[in-house]
């Protein structure tokens, strides 16, 4: 099969699977679940050839398809994949079967609707990563919101309605202004070239004036910063995580947050490189504040899930640092860290879900001495915690190391401060681990059973991934290198133009570099 048509098939396979689900009666819950798992597994397997065949020696878009979609306004179905998206694309297909398998027993009501929502969500997420047309991108971006909203709102915890609404309203605030900016770019493209097109590749070549770049950058960046979430737009995240069902949290941490960082690179950097330079100090500040703030708040949480949620704020701060430090190493680290965070935080939420299913509480103080009754679980949990805090040999180390090494040359002070964040990460994760897993075994925890075969089957691929990236990361970095180099080159050109035009970045006097 042609690779480009395989890409289209993989993207829409889950949605087609959801259509078939409509025909299965709702009482056949076992069949519904198996079908959902099967579809997501096939999607994953089918996406592996994409990863293997992807040519890492090229920065160009690969496996592209371009078709007229709405000729009347010049919107096209233009998709393709490059070094920026290939890892995230495969990460999505990797995480979905795990998330579906993880909800095997915990979702007992409206199973059919649940599976439909999951599969449609998967198609929408995959679509976001491959869209090369701004309207197509926006369509997937928003389409993803509805199933996620339902996942939190229908199958969530006690305060789910509040959390779901907060999630939607926050995301909408950002994306509505992004839509305005998209239409503005479209009209701008028409003014310059006379053609009506939402095509990213066409709009990328526009010479946008500096002042327009500033506003457009802000409109796009707001949408993505909320999604990341960057400090101070992060307040929706803990609520959404805590109230979402386990699979929802896994997808939220594993994939959805990456869309923010991905969007920044894909749109803000490529479309508005000068504005990117201009705002770099601001984002570095916010990134580093996020690292420390997230870590500190995580430390005082009494709810394990909330702790993991705040750790995401901290980890995403690292990714922002890597992206805005603008060296090939730091940005590659940033992209790899997106995958790492997806795997590790996803796994943390899976683990939290497993003990929550047993005890129906996530309060740290309720646990203690769990190691003695759940030895297998504690081994997995420890590995995941260590990977999340960046122990050498695990994936977290590689990503954070690349980010810090790459950033140090340009921004030593920020890098040193960020390094402190790693220490805090060790503190809150290990402290949590000690309180939950060690200590005296309390009465309530005595009857806990260890992981069953299904749960082990969920954990094993994650653990494999953690060590694979930790030991041999070049499988993954080889795919991204050329794309990153091209991005950096583009940014450096913009930087040189900025110098010629005599413009200084915002807050540049406060950099202390």
């Amino acid at each position, binding site marked *: 099969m042609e690779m480009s048509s395989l890409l289209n098939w993989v993207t829409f396979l889950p949605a087609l699977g959801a259509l078939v689900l409509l025909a299965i009666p709702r009482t056949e819950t076992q069949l519904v679940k198996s079908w959902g798992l099967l579809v997501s597994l096939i999607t994953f397997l089918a996406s592996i050839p994409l990863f293997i065949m992807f040519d890492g020696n090229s920065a160009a878009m690969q496996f592209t398809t371009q078709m007229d979609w709405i000729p*009347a*306004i010049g919107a096209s179905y233009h998709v393709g994949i490059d070094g920026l998206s290939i890892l995230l694309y495969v990460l999505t297909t990797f995480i979905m079967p795990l998330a579906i398998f993880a909800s095997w027993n915990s979702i007992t009501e409206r199973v059919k609707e649940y599976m439909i929502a999951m599969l449609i969500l998967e198609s929408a997420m995959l679509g976001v990563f491959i869209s090369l047309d701004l309207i197509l991108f926006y369509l997937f971006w928003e*389409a993803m919101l509805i199933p996620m909203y339902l996942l939190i*709102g229908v199958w969530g915890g006690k305060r789910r*309605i509040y959390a*779901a609404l907060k999630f939607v309203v926050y995301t909408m605030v950002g994306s509505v202004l992004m839509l305005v900016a998209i239409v503005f770019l*479209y009209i701008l493209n028409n003014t310059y070239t006379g053609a009506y097109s939402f095509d990213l590749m066409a709009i990328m070549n526009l010479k946008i004036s500096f002042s327009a770049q500033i506003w457009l950058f802000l409109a796009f960046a707001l949408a993505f910063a909320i999604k990341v979430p960057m400090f101070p737009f992060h307040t929706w995240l803990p609520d959404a995580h805590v109230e979402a069902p386990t699979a929802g949290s896994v997808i939220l941490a594993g994939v959805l947050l990456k869309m923010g960082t991905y969007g920044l690179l894909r749109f803000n950097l490529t479309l508005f490189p000068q504005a990117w330079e201009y705002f770099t100090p601001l984002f570095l500040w916010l990134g580093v504040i996020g690292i420390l703030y997230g870590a500190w708040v995580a430390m005082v949480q009494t709810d394990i899930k909330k702790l993991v949620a705040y750790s995401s704020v901290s980890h995403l701060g690292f990714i922002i640092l890597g992206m805005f430090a603008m060296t090939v190493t730091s940005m590659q680290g940033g992209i790899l860290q997106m995958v790492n965070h997806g795997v590790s935080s996803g796994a943390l939420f899976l683990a939290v879900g497993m003990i929550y299913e047993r005890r129906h509480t996530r309060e740290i103080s309720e646990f203690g001495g769990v190691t003695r009754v759940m030895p297998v679980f504690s081994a997995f949990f420890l590995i995941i915690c260590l990977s999340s805090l960046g122990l050498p040999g695990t994936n977290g180390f590689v990503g954070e190391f690349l980010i810090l090494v790459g950033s140090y040359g340009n921004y030593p002070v920020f890098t040193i401060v960020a390094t402190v964040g790693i220490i805090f990460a060790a503190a809150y994760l290990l402290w949590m681990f000690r309180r939950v897993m060690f200590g005296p075994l309390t009465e309530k925890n005595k009857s806990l059973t260890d992981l069953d075969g299904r749960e082990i089957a969920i954990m094993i691929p994650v653990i494999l991934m953690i060590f694979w990236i930790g030991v041999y990361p070049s499988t993954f970095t080889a795919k991204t290198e050329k794309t990153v180099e091209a991005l950096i080159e583009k940014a450096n050109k913009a930087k040189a133009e900025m110098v010629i035009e005599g413009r200084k970045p915002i807050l540049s006097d406060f950099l202390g570099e």
Partner: protein
Amino acid sequence: MVNINIGNADFLAILPMIVLSFTGIYLLVQGVMAPRMKKSVLSYLGIVGILFSIISNFYLLTIVTEGGQAFFYGMIYLDKLTIILNFIFLVTAALCLLLVNSYSTQEDIEFIEFTPLVIFATVGMMLMGSSYSLMSLFLGLETMSIALYALAGFRKFNRRSLEAALKYFLLGAFATGFLLYGIALLYGAAGSTSLEAIANFLSQNSNPGMMATFGIALMIIGFAFKVALVPFHMWTPDVYQGAPMPVTAFMAVGAKAAGFAAILRVIIGAAGAAEPIWSDLLWWLTVITMTGGNLIALVQSDIKRMLAYSSIAHAGYIMIGIVAANDVTVSAVLFYLIVYMFMNIGAFAVAGIVSGKNERFVDIKHYAGLGKAQPLLALVMTVCMFSLAGFPPTGGFMGKLYIFKAAYQSGFQTLVIIGALNSLLSVYYYIRVVVAMYFQEAAEEQESGSILPEVGLVLLIALIGIFYMGIFPGNTLTWLYY
């Protein structure tokens, strides 16, 4: 002595209206002559008449000339706009008639005159859409309005319904007064009621004088009443709430589309050259309509009132396209009207079934647990709500996109940003319905009426329409653009 010479071509140009008028007259007679006949048959016969009218409308497509042509001594204009508007009115009427039987069974009232009234109102709308003279426009407007006044009061034993009819009649008459005054002034200035003559007059005089300016302003006020722009919207919530549900749907969609048809014909068409006169006025009307409608909708608990304020807000969005006043205005407005038809009829159809006898269950809290009790209804309602809020991949999103695009092209960036923020605001109240349906448990067991097949058909059409317009808008848009 004027030699009046009306040929076959003139009658062919209004064939859909003729077919529909005869259907209406026939149904009136049939209803009286055969009182023992099952009343539901009347609405089916009405739908058959509408289908014939739709077929003759297709025939018009074959004879329409590029750029259009006037008939009946410049009273009627036949161009593609006429035909597209006809389709919108006819489909709206057909969908509403499909809802009537379910409603009349539920309410236990007999709707003998209902179908003929809907049909005559539709004829009036079509006349408005094809008018080429202020006289024929007024004729169409009154034909539509008088039928609607009667329809609003159809629940004869319900106070709300009677109040709605009276309010609608009084305020409507008032608006008509404004409109007539405007027509008179414009006629005085231009010396003719023909839209062509008015267009010529306005394009030749860059400063058309006080009389024409006031004429245009007063006509705008008249139209603003009909399409419910703030601050001329006061009647809308009460009338929508009081009128029977299918009538509310018909008014919210059909009458509003007719009002916009008149605005397209008169303001964009004839008074297009006088844009400096009305542009600022409409800009402000648009902003306060969107914002006002959305803000008040936030606090509504009655679904019909919520939808009423939502329809006001949507009139505001459509007005963005009117203010843009460029070559894509017509297609953007028509596209929005079509999407608006699908999503509102879908929403009102669901609301009609949920409301139960005497429309007791019209509060948003009555939708609690609907997702479990009636999954299909809840699904349609969810899609309609998301489409109204403007989420992709629904038609509501594409409609807003075209409207915004049109405004951008004319340089109304601020208006686009205000519109975008407004649609953000609207998410909150639309989503409340979804929250109730899926996230909340039903407080008490309420009777859940069964869904008649014809209502199911309406729901299906709404669903397909919304997604078709959202995912494959290209075909429709290419067709609308000319």
